[in-house]
């Protein structure tokens, strides 16, 4: 069993580090229960792996609540959130009817920074509305919330910052696990892990588990998460195990698009790959690209779990067929930076001039007039070509 799960604290007392943040959490819930809290909900902010989710579950355990967890990757729109919480109300009413017991619930929105206030139809407003009704305590957690995008959340919720653990806190945490597991690990190794974990408790525990199996700390010190693109590509390209590739892909979901484009470049340019293998891999790649585009458009991030398998499968097969990442930056990344900026500037200038010529604002011209012109041009393209030939001679 993974130690991060096995030794997950069940009570706030057992969580090491972030003492002030935990105190704020306890104070807020006590005030909320007494109806004295100024804030309908609480927002926990901080990097991954420092115990935000664990703290919520432990808090619920200490105060005899049942946690209803909604992850922003699945429940993003108002419709879905209400649907989930509506059925929840019904099931608890039934339970109360049959068992005579009433279970109190905490609603926990994890990774709330994943909800886009504009694109995810009313998702954030729904969270705020649910908290505002004060039927149950609402806790939200976020890694990197945008103070502008999530302004409402910052204004209405109590914001509690969770910070990276200090190496000394990590030492205490590791000592506890060593004691519980009855291990004999040298204190110097524990110190080394605490230094290399960079405040990430999850990573430190994983490193300790690996160290207990005899793996040297130096070889496991680098986290899989948030790798720079170049490092990720190098690691993906050199992996021969599907499991390892899948782990890397899962831990770096923000870079999928870049990985896909770069792998297109790798496969298309590879001198080693045979023609049939290239066709097969590019076909798989195009499907992944379509699914990813569709998923982004529909904002159905629930399907990410399937897509990660497809991407890992593609990379695994590409590696086996002999495709190698040579550190070359694909053109699309240069285009993204240079071409897009130039094109944008040109387009703004042009639409402003054209709009002015027909007495319209740039916005109105871009939104309404330009699409109509485009349609006309598309329909009467042949006539336009004839006219251009006649006037300009080409």
């Amino acid at each position, binding site marked *: 069993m993974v130690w991060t799960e096995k030794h997950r604290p069940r009570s706030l007392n*057992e969580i090491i580090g972030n003492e*002030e943040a935990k105190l704020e959490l*306890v104070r807020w819930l006590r005030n909320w229960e007494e109806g004295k809290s100024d804030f309908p909900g609480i927002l926990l902010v901080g990097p991954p792996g420092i115990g935000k989710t664990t703290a919520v579950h432990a808090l619920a355990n200490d105060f005899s609540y049942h946690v209803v967890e909604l992850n922003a990757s699945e429940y993003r729109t108002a419709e879905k959130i209400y649907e989930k919480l509506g059925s929840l109300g019904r099931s608890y009413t039934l339970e109360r009817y049959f068992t005579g017991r009433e279970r109190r619930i905490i609603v926990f929105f994890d990774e709330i920074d994943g909800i886009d206030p504009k694109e995810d139809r009313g998702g954030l407003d729904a969270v705020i509305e649910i908290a505002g009704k004060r039927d149950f305590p609402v806790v939200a957690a976020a890694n990197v919330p945008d103070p502008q995008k999530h302004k409402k959340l910052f204004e209405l919720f109590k*914001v509690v*910052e969770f910070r990276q653990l200090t190496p000394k806190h990590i*030492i205490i945490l590791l000592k506890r696990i060593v004691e519980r597991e009855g291990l004999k690990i040298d204190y110097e190794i524990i110190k080394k892990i*605490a230094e*290399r974990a960079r*405040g990430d408790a999850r990573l430190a525990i994983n490193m300790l588990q690996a160290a207990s199996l005899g793996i040297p700390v130096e070889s496991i010190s680098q986290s899989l998460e948030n790798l720079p693109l170049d490092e990720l590509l190098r690691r993906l390209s050199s992996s021969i195990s599907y499991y390892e590739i899948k782990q890397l892909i899962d831990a770096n979901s923000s870079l999928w698009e870049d990985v896909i484009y770069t792998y297109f470049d790798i496969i298309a340019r590879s001198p080693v790959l045979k023609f049939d293998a290239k066709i097969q891999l590019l076909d798989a790649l195009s499907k992944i690209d379509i699914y990813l585009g569709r998923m982004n458009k529909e904002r159905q991030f629930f399907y990410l779990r399937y897509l990660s398998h497809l991407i890992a499968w593609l990379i695994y097969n590409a590696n086996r067929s002999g495709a190698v990442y040579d550190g070359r930056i694909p053109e699309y990344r240069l285009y993204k930076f240079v071409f897009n900026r130039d094109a944008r500037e040109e387009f703004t200038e042009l639409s402003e001039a054209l709009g002015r010529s027909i007495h319209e604002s740039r916005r109105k011209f871009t939104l309404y007039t330009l699409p109509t012109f485009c349609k006309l041009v598309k329909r009467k393209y042949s006539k336009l070509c004839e006219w251009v030939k006649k006037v300009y001679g080409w």
Partner: protein
Amino acid sequence: MQYMKIRYGETFSIPRRLGNLFREVVRIKGVEYIKGKGFIVRDYYALSNLNKILARLGLILTPEVRCFICGKYVDCEKCEFRNNCKRDVTICICDDCLNNKNILNIYLAKQNKFLGLKLSSSQK
């Protein structure tokens, strides 16, 4: 960027002319100004908001760190982990307490008192 140590709840003066920023600073919840004595910062939320403003003047205030167990001030400069620590916390553990063989139980008992929670029998 200049760093300056402060203690929560104690007065200190800012070695910069705040000018127009003074109004913004005193508006922060948890920051007070006492004429003739200086500023008081109540908690670390107030401090992070204050630092956002002072960063424009090239000044960052960092809190003095206390040991969670014994309450002594901890000197980060003398800590062996100073290069692997973000140093943005106000609570740490001093070397004496860390080297105590019973540190885990002491920490848990202290935390229990700090949070005001009841210990379950399995945690004792």
